């Protein structure tokens, strides 16, 4: 286990450096120069020179990369000149709200998706299996924003069941004070994530149903529901865990769109607003945080997997 942890951690660190390199290089693709992008085209050459000297942009690229890393390690993600706040503050206030949204979305996707996948595996190749497969197919072909729009249309405009917009809350606590306004954004994320869970669960359960231990349990006279709900369910949950790490980047992409549709004040909306106002420091700082969060997320999923399934640890 220790060897596995070290190897996997080493990989994760390399990937984090890679992510930072990509974001760093994008910084240098900014129109003109970072100075021009931040100070604007009207800035005098003198102001640009001062800005470059102050931020170390006059040094060679690899030196800048090290300085950039030093800042990152110190928790300095840059300064948003548009919002007049350190990027770190912006991220600290927005990230928890996205974590809440994405976490709830995943939770309900599993709550909905696991029973359906299991049901399909047990009823494999029957009418209800085909029907549910078709439905999940349509489900994962739907764009996130359209799902959100349909939910707004059906549940907020045509029937006034839930509010269509999230409160502009500053903290997670304030968001939670309006639980009804969370319903539609979370439902949207659930709707787009659940089909993936269903498909993974179905194929994992089908594989497990063919295993020897199922035959043994049947031979021992264990009731069918016990075999399915205890043995097969437990063993099929394993690959589903990996789905969290695997789909995290896509889910975060989806949450940018969901936050835009529902005006939910999380990282996604922060990034979208930053893109609209060309607030580069916020965009780049946010990209680093989201990239690192993704790496850590899939690392945790892998470690969790290795903890429950020893075979993973020994496989190269």
């Amino acid at each position, binding site marked *: 286990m220790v060897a596995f942890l070290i190897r996997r951690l080493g990989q994760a660190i390399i990937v984090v450096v890679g992510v930072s390199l990509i974001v760093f290089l994008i910084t240098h693709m900014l129109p003109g120069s970072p100075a021009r992008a931040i100070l604007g085209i009207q800035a005098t050459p003198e102001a640009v020179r001062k800005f470059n000297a102050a931020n170390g942009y006059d040094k060679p690229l690899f030196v800048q990369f090290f300085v950039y890393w030093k800042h990152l390690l110190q928790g300095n993600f840059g300064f948003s000149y548009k919002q007049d706040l350190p990027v770190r503050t912006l991220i600290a206030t927005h990230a928890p709200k996205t974590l809440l949204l994405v976490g709830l979305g995943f939770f309900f996707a599993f709550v909905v998706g696991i029973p359906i996948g299991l049901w399909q595996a047990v009823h494999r190749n029957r009418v209800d299996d085909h029907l549910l497969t078709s439905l999940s197919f349509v489900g994962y072909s739907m764009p996130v924003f359209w799902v959100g729009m349909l939910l707004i249309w059906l549940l907020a405009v045509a029937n006034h069941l839930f509010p269509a917009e999230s409160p502009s809350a500053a903290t997670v606590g304030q968001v939670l004070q309006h639980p009804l306004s969370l319903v539609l954004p979370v439902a949207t994320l659930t709707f787009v994530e659940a089909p993936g869970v269903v498909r993974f669960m179905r194929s994992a359960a089908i594989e497990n149903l063919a295993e020897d231990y199922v035959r043994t349990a049947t031979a021992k006279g264990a009731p069918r529901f016990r075999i399915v709900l205890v043995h097969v369910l437990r063993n099929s949950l394993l690959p589903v865990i990996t789905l969290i790490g695997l789909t995290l980047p*896509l889910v975060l992409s989806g949450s940018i769109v969901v936050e835009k549709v529902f005006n939910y004040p999380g990282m996604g909306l922060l990034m979208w607003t930053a893109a609209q106002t060309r607030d580069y420091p916020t965009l780049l700082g946010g990209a680093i945080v989201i990239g690192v969060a993704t790496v850590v997320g899939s690392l945790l999923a892998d470690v969790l997997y290795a903890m429950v399934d020893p075979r993973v640890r020994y496989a190269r």
Partner: protein
Amino acid sequence: MTQQATAVTPADVSQEPPRRLLAPRATSRLRAMGRWCRDHKLGFAGLVMIVLLTLFSFVGPLIYHTDQVHTNLTAVNLAPSLKHPLGTDNVGYDILGRLMEGGQSSLEVGFAAALLASGIGTLWGAVSGYVGGWVDALMMRVVDSAFAIPPLLLLLLVGTIFTPSVLELIIVLGLVSWLITARLVRGDSLSLRTREYVQAAKGAGARNPRVVLRHVIPNALGTIVVQTTFEVANAILLLASLSFLGLGPAPPAANWGAMLSNGLNYIYAGYWWQIYPAGVAIVVTVLAFNMLAESVRDSFATRLIHA
């Protein structure tokens, strides 16, 4: 946006080289295609949908003439009628005509971006798996790193740097979509490089680039074709999301995502015709490519079982 995840479900990514899809002679080739359509109703349905969508987008405007360049402020937000079967939008564009225009850009960009992504991913993956060792490790960590940044976030970043033209959109979408292909082809390449015929080619004096291009990549073609089809669906979805966020091509260029983003502004006014058509168009298109890809993947998998 979960197709990418389902595209890498472990069980169906085969390490074996796929057999040739079609028999050599033309007549038997046609017959083989007919047989494939009969055996894979899902894929056949997807194929028919793609053909119909292409006709709708490219032949449709030749029959159904609308002005998709000049706005018409005397005919804004009209409900569906005989003159405008799907109504008009907030600047007076006919929505049916705009759907056709949007279909053109979706299909063009989707295809081109997917081909580009496959090209990059195939080369990257084939070389990585074939060379192995630290080169492989390095190349795959690059893939991991790029994979960790959500594609839409990368597009958002790039979208702020410049307003993309169609060609630039294709390039950008291609550049964020090659990662899964690279991983899958690398997997194939890892096992292919130990095959006898690859060893034989090397023994006969073939240089590495030739071995990769003539022996490794052609034998990973099954994986590549399937993944490219999935990528078309993904690229169309990404393009729609990007346009929805206001970072797609500028008007009067038509796009399904931008149409929906407009519709969202009028959702409280109850203009349902600005919500349904474009959404349905996206779902049908993406679904068609996913169905086709799934079917082709199944047919490769079953042939392997029978082989």
